[in-house]
C-alpha cells in the first residue's frame, strides 16, 4: 500500500504508457485486434481505481499545500526536476481524467473499426499526458506534458475524424502550439529572473512552488513591461486552450471532426488545461498583472458566453451545437475565476467538473445517434423519443444538467459564479449607465443561462419530439447495455453533484482560497488600483 501511495502520481502517469505498450505487444504477438479494446479498458479502469487513492488521507501535506508530492532531479544541468503533487484544484481534475478515460474507451467500442491498435495507443498516451499536466509542479515538466498532449489528439482527430479532419487537426495543433511556445520563452525567462534575485541563490529554477513563494514574499518582482509580457505569454497559451473568445475558432472544427471519444476527452479534460493553467500559474505567478487584465478577460468571457450561445442556436449539426455551447460554458468558468472572490473561483472549479460531466455526456449521446444514423443533422432527425425512449430520457436529463436546472450539477456552479461576480470588487470603478460593471457582467451571464435553455431545449424538441418525418428513424434501436452502462456514472454524478456538492467544494476550498488570497491580497488596494 505504501508503495502505491508514495508513488501514486507517478503510477497514474506511467500506467497508461504501460497500457499503450501492452496494446502494442498484444497486437504484435496475438494479432487479435478485437481484444485490444479490452486491454485498453482494463488499464484505464485500473488507473481509475488507483486514482481513488487520491481521496484517501494523504498523510503529509507540504507547506505549500500539495500532497502526494514527489521531487526528483531530472536534468541537473538546467536544474529541472520531476516535481509532481496535487492540491484541491488539481485533485478533481485528475480524478475526472481517470473517470472519463474508461468511458471514452467504451464509447469507441464499436465506433472505431480501422487502425484499432494505433487508436488505443494514442488514447492511453493521451491519458498519461493529461494527468501529467494537472500534477506537474515544475514549469518545464508542465510545458512538456502540455505540449505532449497535443500529439495524440492531433492523431485522434486526423486519422479517425470526419471528412474535414485534416484541416481541423492541423488548425488545432498550430493554434495551441503557437500559444504554448511563447509560454516556453516566459518559463525560461522566469528561470533567470529567479537566478537574478539580488542576494538570492545563484541557480535559477523552474520549480513552481519556489517561484510562487518568491513572488508571494515579493523577493521576485518584475518591471511593469516585463511582468505584462510574461503574464500575456502564459495567458495566451491558456486562453487559446480554453478557448476564450476570440481564440475559440479552432474548437468547433476540432470538436466536429473528432471521433466521439476524442470530442469527449477534448471537452471534458483538454479544455480544462486552459482554465487550470490560468488559475494555477497566471494567478499565482502574476497576481498584479492578473488583476490589471481581469476586466479584459471578463469582457471576453461575457462575449464568449453570449456569442457562443447565439451561434449554437443556429447550428444545424448537433455536434457543432454542443461545441459552441462549450465556448459559452467555458466563458462562465473564466468569468468566475476572474471575479477573484472565493465563491466565484470555487464555482469556476466546480463548473470545470460540471462541464466535463455534462458536455462530455452530450458528446457521447450525439455519438450514439451518429453511430446509428451516420448523420448529426437536426433536420434529418425528429421524433426519436418514440423508438428510443431511454436515449431520449438520458438526453433530456443531460440537457437539463447542462442548462443548469436546480438540483442538477450545472446549477451549483453557475449560481456560485454569478454570486461571485456580483460580489466581485475587481470591476469597481467601471460604470455603465450608472451600474457597476460587475452587475452588468452578472446580468449577461444570467442571460447566457437563458440562452442555453433556448438552444438546448429547442434542439431536444426538434430531435426527440413531434412526428417522425424520416422513415429511417422509425426502427432505430435504443441504447445497448454498454451504452447505458457508460452513461450511468455520468448521470449519477449530475444528480450527486447537484444535490450534495459539499465533498467536492470542501476539498477544493483550501487550495482555492490560497490562490484567491495571493491574487487579491487586500481588497482595498485593488480598488485603488483599478481606479488608476
Amino acid at each position, binding site marked *: 500500500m505504501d508503495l502505491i501511495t508514495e508513488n501514486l502520481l507517478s503510477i497514474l502517469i506511467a500506467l497508461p504508457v504501460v497500457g499503450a505498450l501492452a496494446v502494442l505487444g498484444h497486437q504484435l504477438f496475438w494479432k487479435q485486434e478485437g481484444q485490444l479494446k479490452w486491454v485498453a479498458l482494463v488499464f484505464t479502469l485500473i488507473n481509475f481505481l488507483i486514482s481513488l487513492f487520491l481521496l484517501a488521507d494523504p498523510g503529509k501535506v507540504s507547506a505549500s499545500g500539495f500532497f502526494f508530492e514527489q521531487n526528483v532531479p531530472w536534468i541537473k*544541468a*538546467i536544474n529541472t526536476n520531476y516535481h509532481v503533487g496535487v492540491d484541491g484544484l488539481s485533485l478533481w481534475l485528475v480524478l475526472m481524467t481517470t473517470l472519463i478515460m474508461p468511458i471514452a474507451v467504451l464509447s469507441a467500442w464499436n465506433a472505431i473499426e480501422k487502425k484499432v491498435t*494505433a487508436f488505443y495507443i494514442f488514447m492511453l498516451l493521451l491519458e498519461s499526458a493529461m494527468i501529467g499536466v494537472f500534477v506537474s509542479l515544475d514549469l518545464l515538466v508542465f510545458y512538456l506534458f502540455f505540449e*505532449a498532449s497535443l500529439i495524440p489528439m492531433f492523431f485522434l482527430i486526423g486519422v479517425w475524424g470526419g471528412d474535414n479532419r*485534416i484541416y481541423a*487537426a492541423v488548425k488545432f495543433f498550430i493554434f495551441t*502550439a503557437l500559444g504554448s511556445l511563447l509560454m516556453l520563452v516566459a518559463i525560461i525567462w522566469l528561470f*533567470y529572473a529567479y*537566478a537574478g534575485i539580488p542576494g538570492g541563490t545563484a541557480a535559477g529554477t523552474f520549480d513552481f512552488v519556489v517561484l510562487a513563494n518568491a513572488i508571494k514574499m515579493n523577493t521576485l518582482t518584475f518591471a511593469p513591461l516585463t511582468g505584462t509580457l510574461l503574464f500575456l505569454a502564459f495567458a495566451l497559451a491558456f486562453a487559446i486552450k480554453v478557448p476564450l473568445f476570440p481564440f475559440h475558432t479552432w474548437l468547433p472544427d476540432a470538436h466536429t471532426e473528432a471521433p466521439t471519444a476524442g470530442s469527449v476527452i477534448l471537452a471534458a479534460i483538454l479544455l480544462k488545461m486552459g482554465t487550470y493553467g490560468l488559475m494555477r500559474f497566471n494567478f499565482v505567478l502574476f497576481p498584479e498583472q492578473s488583476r490589471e487584465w481581469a476586466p479584459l478577460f471578463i469582457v471576453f468571457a461575457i462575449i464568449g458566453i453570449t456569442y457562443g450561445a447565439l451561434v449554437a442556436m443556429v447550428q444545424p449539426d448537433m455536434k457543432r451545437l454542443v461545441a459552441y455551447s462549450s465556448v459559452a460554458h467555458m466563458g462562465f468558468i473564466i468569468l468566475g475565476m476572474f471575479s477573484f472572490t472565493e465563491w466565484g473561483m470555487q464555482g469556476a472549479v466546480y463548473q470545470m467538473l460540471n462541464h466535463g460531466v455534462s458536455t462530455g455526456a452530450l458528446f457521447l449521446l450525439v455519438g450514439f445517434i451518429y453511430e446509428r444514423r451516420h448523420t448529426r443533422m437536426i433536420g434529418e432527425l425528429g421524433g426519436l423519443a418514440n423508438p428510443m425512449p431511454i436515449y431520449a430520457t438520458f438526453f433530456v436529463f443531460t440537457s437539463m444538467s447542462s442548462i443548469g436546472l436546480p438540483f442538477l450539477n450545472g446549477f451549483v456552479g453557475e449560481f456560485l459564479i454569478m454570486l461571485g461576480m456580483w460580489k466581485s470588487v475587481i470591476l469597481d470603478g467601471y460604470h455603465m449607465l450608472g451600474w457597476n460593471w460587475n452587475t452588468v457582467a452578472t446580468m449577461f451571464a444570467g442571460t447566457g443561462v437563458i440562452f442555453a435553455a433556448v438552444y438546448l431545449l429547442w434542439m431536444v424538441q426538434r430531435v426527440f419530439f413531434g412526428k417522425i418525418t424520416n422513415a429511417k428513424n422509425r426502427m432505430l434501436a435504443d441504447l445497448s447495455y454498454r451504452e447505458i452502462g457508460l452513461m450511468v456514472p455520468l448521470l449519477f454524478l449530475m444528480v450527486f453533484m447537484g444535490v450534495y456538492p459539499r465533498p467536492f467544494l470542501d476539498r477544493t476550498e483550501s487550495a482555492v482560497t490560497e490562490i484567491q488570497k495571493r491574487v487579491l491580497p487586500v481588497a482595498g488596494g485593488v480598488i485603488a488600483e483599478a481606479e488608476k
Partner: protein
Amino acid sequence: MQIDMIFFAELVTPNVSISAILPELVVALAGIVAMVYDSFVPDQRRVTAGISLAGLIVATVILGAMWTADVPASAFGGMIAHDNLRLGFSFVFLLVTALTILISTVWIENENVPAGEFHALLMFATFGMMLMASGNDLVVMFLGLETLSIATYVMAGFRKTDLKSNEASMKYFILGSFASAFLLYGMALIYGATGTTNITEIASRIADPNFPALLLIGAAMMIIGFGFKAATVPFHVWTPDVYEGAPSPVTGFMAAGPKAAAFASFLRVFVIGFPLVAGAQAAGYLHETWITALSVIAILTMTVGNVAAILQNNIKRMLAYSSIAHAGYALVGFLGAGTATDAADRDAAIASVAFYMLAYAITNLGAFGIVTLLGQKNDRRAEFEDYNGIGFRSPALAFSLSLFMLSLLGIPLTAGFMGKVLVFRPALEAGNTLLTIVVVVAVLNTAISAYYYLRLIVVMFFRERTTEWAQPRIPAGMTAALVIAVIGVLYFGIFSSGIIERFSRSMPASRVVSNR
C-alpha cells in the same frame, strides 16, 4: 632576431603531441586503409564499411578517454585546442559519419556505388571536420575546412550519370570555392590587424589591434565564409539545389556534419577569438558589431528557411530549407555564447550549440535514412504525394519518420525539444533586448515550422493511398541506423542530463589552451 631564435628552438624540439590529435589520426588512418584496400580488392563494400566503422568506434573511445584523461591542453605550439568545444563537436561528427555509413547501405546496394571510394572520402571529410573543431589557429581551421569541402564536393556528385547530381556538385564547388576565398581573405586581414593567426593570441590582441578597420572587415569576411558553410541567410542560396541533387545519404551527411563543423570553427573564431574586452574600444566595437550582425542573420535565417520550407513539394528540398532554419536556431545559442559574462556560462552556451547539433544530426540523419529507403533508385520518390497513406502500410517506418519530424519541430520528449530549450536559455540569460527578440522570433518560427513538419505526418497518416505500395526491404545497416536514431532521439530528449553535463564541463584551469 628573437623571433628567429624561437623558430629555431621549435625546429629542434617541436611541440608535437601525437596523443592530442589521436582521434583525428585514427579517422584519417582508417580512411587511408579503406582507400588502399579498395584499390587492391575492389567492390568489397562490407569490408570498407567495416574498416571505417571500426576507425570511428576507436576514435570515439579515444575521444571519450580524452574527456577525463590528462591530455596536454595545447599541442603543436597552440595550434590544437583541447576543450569542451572540440570534444563535444568531435563526438557529433563521429556519430554523423557512422550513421551516414549505415544509411548509405541501401543506396550503395541499389545503385552499385563504388563503396570504397565513398567510405574513404567520408572518412577524410570527417578528419577535416574534426580538425575544424580542434584547430585553435586560423590556418588549421582552413586546412580542415578544405579537406572537408573537397571530399564533399566529390560526394555530392557521386551519381555520375545523373545530371542533377552533377549540377549539385558543380554548384557546390564553385560557390564553395568562392566562400573559401572570402574566408581566407578574412583570415589574412585578421592576421594583418593582429599579427597572429592563433585564436588565443587574437583574443588577447583585439583590445589594441594594429589596424582596427582591418579587424572589422576581416570579421565581416569571415562571417560570409562561415555563413556560407553553415548555410545561413543570405548565403544559403546554394543549399536547396545541392541538397536536392546530391544522393540522399550524402545530403543527410552535409546537412548534419559540415554544418556542425562550420559552427565549431565559427564559434571558436568569434566567441573565443573576438570576446568583449572591458574598457577596450576596438574590441567592444567589434563585439557589438558581430553580435548585431549575427542577430540579424539569425532572424533572417530562421524566417526565410521556414517560410520557404512551407512552399516545397519535394521532401528533400523541404528538409534542405528546414536545415537552413535550424542553422538559425543554432545561431541563437551562438549569440548566447557570445554574450555570456563568464567562462562557465560561455562553455555551457557552447555546449548547448554542440548539443543542438547533436540532436539535429541524429534526427536529420534518421529522416534522410527513411527518405533514402523510400526514394528507391535515384531518389525517384521524394515528393510529398509519394508518401500518401503509407502510415499504416509501413507503420514502423512511418512512425519513426513522424518521430523525427516531431523532433525537428521540437516537441517535448524528443532531442529537438531539449536542443531548443538549451539554445534559447543562454540567449535569454543575458537579458539583452535584441537577443530576447531573436528568441521570440525563434519560437514564432517554430510555430510556422509546425505546418510543414506536420504536413508529412498528415500525408502519411491522414490521407488514403490510391496507388500500389510495395513494402521496402530494409537492409541490416539501415535497420541499425534507424534504431540508433529513434533511440537517440528519445534518449537525448528524456535522459539528456548526462550528455549536457559532459558537453558543458569546462576544462580545469590548468588545461585551458594557452599559447606555449
